[in-house]
């Protein structure tokens, strides 16, 4: 087991180096001069060149890369072009909000997706199975921004039971428990929109796993022993069908972060995605690259964790 974990860790070292090189490459390819917004227009060309030298912008690329990595490791992503804000501070301000949203969507997708998949598999080829399978395909196929707009239109504008955007009712100035329920109230719609695609893929995956397991010899043995159908389904089949679902844990992280870009911008949720969209509009490449690097690292950690979890629950794949 320890050997497996060590092997997985060693394998992710080149990946994380690759991630940083790719991020750095994209940043270097981006147009525009990082100095352009800081300097006084009356400065002479010689002085400009001198300050470029002093900032290391004329160093060879690999030297720049190592300097950049040195700063990034200490959590310093530099400053924005406009307003001279510290990028890491901007991101840290937004990160918790994105985590609240993605984590809720993550929990929602498994709490809803697994039971739906199991029910569809148990009632295979029934009308219920067909409708659930159809609905989960719709969930995969609907563009998330369109679903988001529909949900806002229906629940916020027509019915008026949920707020159409934002994270809290600032004017009300809630504190304590009221503050908590207020955020929850704002959270429900975006969390549903963000999790929909994931609910659909989790339930489809659970259904096909469950059907595969039901064909296994040990299920036939259990039936031959005369065990009750419920015991066979929920004790023998369900537990084994759940094992591969662990792999989706890792896969759903990049999916949710991608989705957060769209969901946050539709719902005005003050998270990293919304920051990213604003950064695109303002051409703030530093912010985009920092977001890329941070999410890529989070995704890598997520995959690592789910691989290790998989090995913990299923001893067959350790070697």
């Amino acid at each position, binding site marked *: 087991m320890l050997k497996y974990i060590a092997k997985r860790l060693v*394998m*992710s070292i*080149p*990946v994380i180096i*690759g*991630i940083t090189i*790719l991020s750095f490459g*994209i940043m270097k*390819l*981006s*147009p525009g001069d990082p100095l352009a917004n800081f300097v006084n227009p009356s400065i002479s060309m010689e002085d400009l060149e001198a300050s470029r030298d002093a900032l290391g912008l004329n160093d060879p690329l690999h030297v720049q890369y190592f300097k950049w990595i040195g700063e990034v490791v200490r959590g310093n992503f530099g400053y924005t072009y406009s307003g001279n804000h510290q990028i890491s501070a901007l991101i840290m301000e937004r990160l918790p909000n994105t985590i609240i949203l993605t984590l809720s969507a993550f929990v929602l997708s498994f709490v809803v997706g697994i039971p739906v998949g199991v029910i569809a598999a148990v009632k295979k080829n029934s009308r219920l199975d067909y409708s659930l399978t159809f609905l989960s*395909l*719709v969930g*995969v*196929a*609907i*563009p*998330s*921004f*369109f679903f988001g*707009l*529909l949900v*806002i*239109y229906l629940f916020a*504008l027509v019915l008026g039971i949920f707020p*159409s955007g934002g994270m809290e009712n600032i004017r009300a100035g809630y504190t304590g428990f009221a503050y908590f329920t207020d955020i929850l109230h704002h959270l429900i719609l975006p969390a549903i929109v963000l999790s929909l695609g994931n609910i659909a893929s989790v339930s489809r995956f659970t259904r096909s796993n469950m059907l595969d397991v039901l064909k296994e010899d040990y299920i036939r043995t259990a039936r031959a022993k005369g065990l009750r159908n419920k015991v066979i389904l929920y004790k023998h089949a369900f537990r084994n069908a759940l094992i591969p679902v662990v792999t989706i844990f890792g896969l759903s992280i*990049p*999916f949710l*972060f*991608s*989705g957060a*870009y*769209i969901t946050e*911008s*539709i719902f005005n949720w003050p998270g990293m995605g919304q920051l*990213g*969209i604003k950064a*695109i*509009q303002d*051409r703030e*490449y530093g912010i*985009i*690259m920092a*977001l*890329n690097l941070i*999410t*890529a*690292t989070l*995704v*890598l950690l997520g*995959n690592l964790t789910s691989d290790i979890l998989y090995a913990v629950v299923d001893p067959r794949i350790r070697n």
Partner: protein
Amino acid sequence: MFKKNSFYDFAYRRFTRNRLAVIGFAVTLFFVIMALFAPLIAPHEPSEFFFVEGQNVYDKYAAPSSEHLLGTDSLGRDVFSRLVYGARVTMMVALLAVSISTVIGTVIGLLSGYFGKIIDNIFMRLVDIVISFPVLFLLISISTIMDPSIWIVIFAIGFVSWTSTARLVRAEVLRVKELDYIAAARACGTSNLKIIVKHILPNILAPIMVQVTIGTAQAILMEASLSFLGVGVQQPTPSWGNMLMDAQKLLVLRDMPWIWIPPGVVNLLLVLAIYFVGDGLRDAFDSRQ
């Protein structure tokens, strides 16, 4: 249509028995026809501006009428005509992007699976790196660095989404490579290239075709998301994604559903239809049934 009792003959028969798959195929065909014959179907040019009668003012946000079936948008353009032409843009982007990702993914998967060892290790770590970036993040980075154009969108989607094809092809090659007929071919002194192209590739074509179908649906969704966020297909070219941008304004969202619901619905219908075809193909190729 196919040689009697061949693999594809059985698959074809299984596919045509699957009602959902046939419906999906028909709907997809409908949109393909719409895209091909857009100039004949659309009543107006997609970028033609309309004016309020007798005045020099754009006729914007007009309600649906016999003249404009789905009304006009924020610049006074006919929504229905843009919807029809949008099918063209959507299909072109998706098909070209999927061609790129299929070629890259298949080549990398074949090399990785067949040669193994260092080549496999390098390519699979490359896949790990690319999939660590959420697809939309990479797409957004690429389309912000380069000036956004339809070609950038196509190449960006193609170069980002080859990873699942590569993994699939690699796994299939690993399965096929150990079979006896490959060993026989090798024993006869057949070259590696010939083994890969003539003996392995035809035998793993079925799962690749399923992947192409699913990939097309995903490419359509990616293009729509990018265009919705303003980094994809740019105005005045209509795309089903950028036609929904207007709905971010509360006024349009609340009072003018005819502007934003139709492009969303056709987008959903097409993607859903293609997924049905993909699921149908997967079941049809599965000879265990």
